[in-house]
C-alpha cells in the first residue's frame, strides 16, 4: 500500500498563500541582506500589528458572511482617544486602556445591533460607523495629532521588549494564537462558521444567530480598538487621520489568506499569512529605494486578483 501525500481541496488555497509568502520572503531574503535577521523579523511583525489585530476581527466578520468597513476609523479614534485620556484628562494607563477598549466594543456592538435587529446591510451600517468614528476622532482634538512621548506611565509600554519583541508585536502574536484557538475550538468559533455557511440552517439548528452576530461585530470593534492602542504605542502618539482605508488592507489580507467573502470558509492562520504577505510587499519599496510605493498597491491588487480567481476555480471544481 502506498501512502500518498494528499492535500484536501479546502486547504489548497491556504497552501497557495503559504507558497506565495515563502516565495516573497525567500526572494527578499536573498535580495536584501539582513532581511531575515531576527531584528527585521520582529520589526515586520511589530509594524503590521495594528493591521494584524484589525484583520483578526475582520476574519470573524467575513467568516460570518459580513463585512466591517469601520476598522480603520476605529483605529484612528482609539489612538486619539487614548492620547486624550492620558495627556489631556490625565487618566492613569490602567484606566485609559480599558476605556478605549470599551469604546471599541461599544462601537462594534452598536453596528452589530443595527445589522441584526433592523436587518440592515453590514456594508451600510459599518460605513456609517466609519464616518462616525472618523468624525468623532477629528472633532475630539483640534490639532488632529497628540504626542504621548515622555508620559511617565505610558513610556514603560513603549520601551517594553521581550526577546526583541516590543509590546505591539507580542500582542499581535498572542492575539493570533488566541484567535486561532477561538475560531477552531470554541462554540463561538463554530457558530461563526455555521452562520457564514448558511444563516438559515444555523437558525434552524437552534444556534444563537442573533447573539453571535452582535458578538462578532463587538469583537471586531475590540480588535480595532486594540489596533489603535498598538498604533499609539508604536508611534507614541494619537492621530485622527491615521489608518485611512486600512479596512481595505485588512479585507485584502483576509481574502489573500484564503477566506471566502461569501462566508463559512477560511482560516485564521491564512489571515496571519495574508498580513505578513502585505507586510513584506509594503517594505520592499523601502529596500529597493528607487521602487515607488504605488507599486505596493498594484502588487496587492494583482495578488488579490490571483487569489480570487484561484478560489473561484477551486469552487467550480468542487461544485462540478
Amino acid at each position, binding site marked *: 500500500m502506498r501512502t500518498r501525500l494528499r492535500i484536501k481541496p479546502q486547504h489548497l488555497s491556504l497552501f497557495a498563500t503559504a507558497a506565495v509568502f515563502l516565495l516573497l520572503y525567500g526572494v527578499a531574503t536573498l535580495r536584501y541582506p539582513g532581511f531575515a535577521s531576527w531584528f527585521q523579523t520582529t520589526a515586520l511583525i511589530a509594524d503590521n500589528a495594528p493591521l494584524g489585530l484589525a484583520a483578526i476581527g475582520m476574519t470573524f466578520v467575513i467568516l460570518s458572511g459580513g463585512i466591517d468597513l469601520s476598522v480603520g476609523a476605529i483605529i484612528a479614534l482609539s489612538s486619539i482617544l487614548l492620547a486624550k485620556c492620558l495627556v489631556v484628562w490625565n487618566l492613569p494607563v490602567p484606566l485609559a486602556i480599558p476605556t478605549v477598549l470599551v469604546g471599541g466594543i461599544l462601537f462594534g456592538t452598536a453596528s452589530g445591533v443595527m445589522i441584526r435587529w433592523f436587518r440592515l446591510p453590514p456594508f451600510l451600517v459599518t460605513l456609517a460607523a466609519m464616518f462616525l468614528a472618523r468624525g468623532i476622532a477629528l472633532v475630539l482634538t483640534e490639532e488632529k495629532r497628540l504626542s504621548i512621548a515622555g508620559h511617565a506611565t505610558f513610556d514603560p509600554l513603549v520601551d517594553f521588549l521581550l526577546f526583541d519583541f516590543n509590546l505591539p508585536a507580542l500582542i499581535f502574536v498572542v492575539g493570533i494564537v488566541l484567535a486561532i484557538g477561538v475560531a477552531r475550538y470554541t462554540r463561538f468559533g463554530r457558530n461563526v462558521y455555521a452562520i457564514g455557511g448558511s444563516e438559515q440552517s444555523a*437558525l434552524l439548528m437552534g444556534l444563537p444567530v442573533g447573539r453571535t452576530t452582535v458578538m462578532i461585530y463587538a469583537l471586531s470593534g475590540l480588535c480595532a480598538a486594540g489596533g489603535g492602542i498598538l498604533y499609539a504605542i508604536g508611534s507614541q502618539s494619537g492621530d485622527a487621520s491615521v489608518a485611512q482605508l486600512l479596512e481595505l488592507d485588512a479585507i485584502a489580507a483576509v481574502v489573500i489568506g484564503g477566506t471566502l467573502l461569501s462566508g463559512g470558509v477560511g482560516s485564521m492562520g491564512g489571515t496571519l499569512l495574508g498580513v505578513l504577505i502585505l507586510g513584506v510587499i509594503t517594505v520592499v519599496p523601502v529596500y529597493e529605494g528607487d521602487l*515607488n510605493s*504605488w507599486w505596493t498597491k498594484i502588487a496587492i491588487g494583482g495578488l*488579490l486578483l490571483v487569489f480570487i*480567481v484561484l478560489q*473561484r476555480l477551486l469552487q467550480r471544481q468542487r461544485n462540478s
Partner: protein
Amino acid sequence: MPESLRKLCWPLAALAVLLLFNALLNPEFFSLHFAEGRLTGSLVDVLDRATPVLLLSLGMTLVIATAGVDLSVGAVMAMAGSISAVLLTDFGMPVLPTLLITLLASLAAGAWNGLLVSMLGIQPIVATLILMVAGRGIAQLLTDGQIIPIEGHPGFAYLGGGTLFFLPVTITIALAAALFTAIAVRYTALGLFIESAGENPTASRYAGLNVRAVRLLVYTLSGLFAGVAGLIYASDITAADANNAGLYLELDAILAVVIGGTALSGGRFFLAGSIIGALIIQTLGTTILMTQIGGQSIPAEWNLIVKAIVVLVVCLLQSAALRQILTGKGVRG
C-alpha cells in the same frame, strides 16, 4: 400612487428639510447673482459640486440594481485624471483625442470589472476591490506620484469651469448624462432586464435573458461615468491629483443610491432618487459649511458625523424590520 413616486417621497422630504433649515438659518443660501455671464450662488454651487457624485451614482444605481456594487469608481476617477494629464502634457495631444482616449480607458476599466463579475462569477465587492486598490496605484504610477498641473488647455478647463446657458457647464453634463441613462433604461427594455437580473438571476437566465451581458454592460457604464467624473474633477482643479481624486467618492455614490430608495439587494431601482440623493449629500456639506451657531461656524469635521447620522436614519426609515418591531410584530432570531 405608483411605487416610483412613493419611493421618492422620503428623499424629497429630506432635501426639503435641508432647504427649509437653510431658509431659516442661512437666508443667503438662496440668493442668486448674475455676474460675468453666469448665475452664482449657493444653489448653483451645490448643483455644480454635486456633479461628480451624481455621475457616479447614475452608474452605481444600475450596478446596485443588478445586486452588485462598484467600489472602484473613485480609483477610476483618479486614473482618468492621470491619463488625461499625461496625454495633454507629456504627449502634447490635443484636447478632443485626449478626452476620447481617457473615456475609452475608463470604459475598459469598467468592462474589466464587468468581466470579473459576469464571466468569472466573482462577488462584486471583491472584484471591484481589486481595481479600487490597484487603480489608484496605476494612477500614481502614471503621474509619478506628483500632482500634474494641466495648464494652457482652455478646452480642457472648460469641462469643469466653463459656462453654458448662464450656468456651470457641469450642470449640463450631469443633466445630459441623467437623461441619457433615463432614456436608455426607461424607453428600452434595458431597465427591465437590469431589474430582472438583480431580482432573480437564475429565473432571468431561464427566461432567456443574457444576465452576463447585462452585468457586463452596467459595470462598463459605471466605468464610463466614473471617467467623465474624473475628467470634470481634474478640469475643475486644473491638475491630476492621483492621491486625492475620487477618494471616498465611491462611498458617497453608494450612499446617494441608497438614500434614493434603491436597495443594496438589487431589483427595483430609482434613478431620480439617486440624483436627489447626490444633491442631498452635497446640500448637507454646503449647509454645514455655511451654518453659523452663535456667530461661530461649525467645523468641517462635523460633516462626517452628520453624514453618519443621515446614513443611519435613512437606512432605518427603509428597514422593514424596524417597521415590524414598531407595529408589534417582532422578528425571529
